[in-house]
């Protein structure tokens, strides 16, 4: 199993690690039993633009790298745009992931969606999107 240089770069120098106090949107996905938890914090302005984004992740190299890349990809975009982020886009931006690590990118997509859902809930907007990625994760054995 080999990680791309991009994955290693995002793992060794993760972007946007940390917490945002009183963030408008906070999402947590995954569970410790499976070995991955991602927590995503969103700072959103009155125009629905994600002005800041931070994450904390418990997991492998790919879990940390996909979280980092996801924050990069949504920062400065509107929440609507953030909702269009797919795990595939995260994988491509990282120049690929080993097959057994694809689920990490799914988790990254779902972390963003979970944080946006939290924001919608807080401002009383109906959650009109699927919180789960529609990517079928390849069978893991």
């Amino acid at each position, binding site marked *: 199993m080999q990680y791309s240089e991009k994955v*290693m770069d995002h793992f060794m120098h993760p972007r946007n690690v940390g917490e945002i106090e009183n963030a408008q949107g906070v999402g947590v996905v995954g569970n410790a039993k499976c*070995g991955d938890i991602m*927590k995503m914090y969103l700072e959103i302005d009155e125009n629905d633009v994600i002005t800041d984004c931070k994450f*904390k*992740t*418990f997991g*492998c*190299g790919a*879990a940390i790298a996909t979280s980092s890349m996801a924050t990069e990809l949504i920062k400065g975009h509107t929440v609507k745009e953030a909702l269009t982020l797919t795990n595939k886009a995260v994988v491509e931006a990282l120049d690929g992931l080993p097959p057994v690590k694809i689920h990490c990118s799914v988790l990254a997509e779902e972390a963003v969606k979970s944080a946006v859902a939290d924001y919608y809930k807080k401002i009383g907007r109906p959650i009109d999107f699927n919180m789960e990625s529609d990517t079928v994760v390849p069978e*893991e054995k």
Partner: protein
Amino acid sequence: MDRFVYADNAATTPVSAEVFEAMKPCFETVWGNPSSLHTKGREAKKVLDDARARIANVFSCRPDEVYFTSCGSESDNWAIKGAAHRMKAKGRTHIVTTKIEHHAVLYTCQALEKEGFTVTYVGVDGDGVVNMDELKAAVDDKTALVAVMYANNEIGTVEPIAEITEIAHAAGALMFTDAVQAVGNVPIDLSQLKVDMLSLSGHKLHAPKGIGMLFIRKGVFIDNLIDGGGQERRKRGGTENIPYIVGLAKALEVAKEQLPDLTRVAAMRDRLIEGLTKIPYSKLNGHRTNRLPGNVNVGFECIEGESMLLLLDMEGICASTGSACSSESLEPSHVLLAIGVPHEKAHGSLRLSISHETTDADIDYILEKVPPVVARLRDMSPLWENVQKSNVNQ
């Protein structure tokens, strides 16, 4: 990178200079087939016989009890399948093993289950020592074979093989021990230890990969796994790998000579254990004292093993983990689960396996580099955040 420290000797070891030197003539001049009757063949046969005799001397067994194989996994497969198939004729269709065996043993047992054999997987205590009451209760007059590893590859716990052998023999069952991790790390005298079969692998003790051995005690009969030419007294086909067999003989002799040096290795191990378990929310996996001299396995809460390995690798430290994420299976180590480590904690284990080549400076270096790596990963872990918050609230 300030330094390079190889602390993954349980995975494999480098071929030592003396082993390499011993093997060289077998590539240059002694390249004959020992089955050939001509000069070249007889020359090779002599070298083969000599290697076998030297290995027998190391273990205090007979040369005709030594069978060369391609690896530890082949030896394990042969011992278990060969014994099961042979004992079936005597109405014995039950195998007793443990939950912490290597996959070469576990999956072989599972394959036999598909053929209709029944297998009891005996549990272990929190230190990884086989539960003897459970084992005694499992062995009966239907038991063909008891297969228990000499020492565990992940947590280093050494099992009471002599005692287990007595239990197996009292019930008329054969006793096999997978000693792949133990050979070279604990003294083994096969004139004292009454096991019927013992497997080992060359590359764990500075011989090359691709050479293994199965000891089968005289008078013990098991079915063949590999049929072919008449090699290994018609028990294992395949032209003998003379260079690697010579390498294995040399490696075993050197390992035996170096046994006294293992006290020094164990002292370094203890220093590692002491230093690493000073890190808060960490725990030693495996028995504190009854463990292989080179094995350290520590679990760190709230972080995941693969990311720990990658960061340590960046510092020049080669280690290993029982985390699911480091494997292709995504299942955490069955050994850690068997000793009662919960799933979420099993992901954060670090195995360091040192050898006589490890120095005190290497230990200092590991002890300097691991704590900041753990701290760095905890800093970005949401689980650690929860631990910190609950501490503040207490």
